[in-house]
């Protein structure tokens, strides 16, 4: 997305997310962004930003417990960015969603 994105993220970049639950993917073709955009529908909120050259980026999507990805990605309960600016809204959305979870978080 940026002019500097000519290579896979280095170990130092990956090291910024050390949570063992996180899986990090290299997606140079923006397949996830394209799928999220194509499958966006109500009641998922519409993002206020985060589209460059028609591609979603710098965006977070929160999916509550119970929803499944079938033919389409399910509607997210939170869908917005840029991450650095939506942190105050993202954290409560995660907490609310996590409260619904019966399993480990």
């Amino acid at each position, binding site marked *: *997305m*940026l*002019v*500097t*994105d000519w*290579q*896979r*993220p*280095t*170990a*130092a*970049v*990956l*090291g910024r*997310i*050390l949570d063992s639950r*996180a*899986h*990090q*993917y*290299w*997606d140079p*073709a923006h*397949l*996830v*962004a394209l*799928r*999220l955009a194509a499958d966006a529908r109500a009641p998922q909120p519409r993002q206020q930003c*985060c589209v460059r050259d028609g591609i*979603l*980026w*710098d*965006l*977070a*999507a*929160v*999916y*509550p*417990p*119970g*929803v*499944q*990805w079938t033919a389409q990605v399910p509607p*997210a309960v939170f869908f917005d*960015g840029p*991450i650095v600016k939506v942190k105050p809204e993202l954290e409560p959305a*995660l907490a609310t*969603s*996590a409260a*619904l*979870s*019966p*399993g*480990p*978080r």
Partner: protein
Amino acid sequence: MKHGEKLAPVAAVVSAVSCVACCLPFGIFAAAGAAWLSVIVEPIRPYLLGVSAALLAFGLWQLYRARGTCRRRTRTSIAIFWVSFVLVAAVALAPQVVGSLLAGGLPGAGGGARLNDLNLDVLKAEFNRAADRTRLIVLFSPT
């Protein structure tokens, strides 16, 4: 008088060192140093890059325009200037890449984090496998 005799050689040495120092590319070194420091000290990066740019401009002036005691322009000083210029430009234009390269060279920089090539079917399967939990998908630039 005695003090003058003692101080004269010291003054001469200081003068000589000053004369040599003005011909050495300290400003250029400082420019590169400030730029590299800006990678680490992110909040004041714009100021450090400003200092770097000013010092580079001073170095450029020293090399090509100054008509004082430093007329000699050696290949070394020219090479140092342009290497510093490239370093400062790299830090200014791609600070994340430079920072990543710096940190990536350190042992254990990634903390064991793994990168997987995206396969939508795999992602979908993992998404559904964690259906009893909240899932968060975040789209980031690699830099």
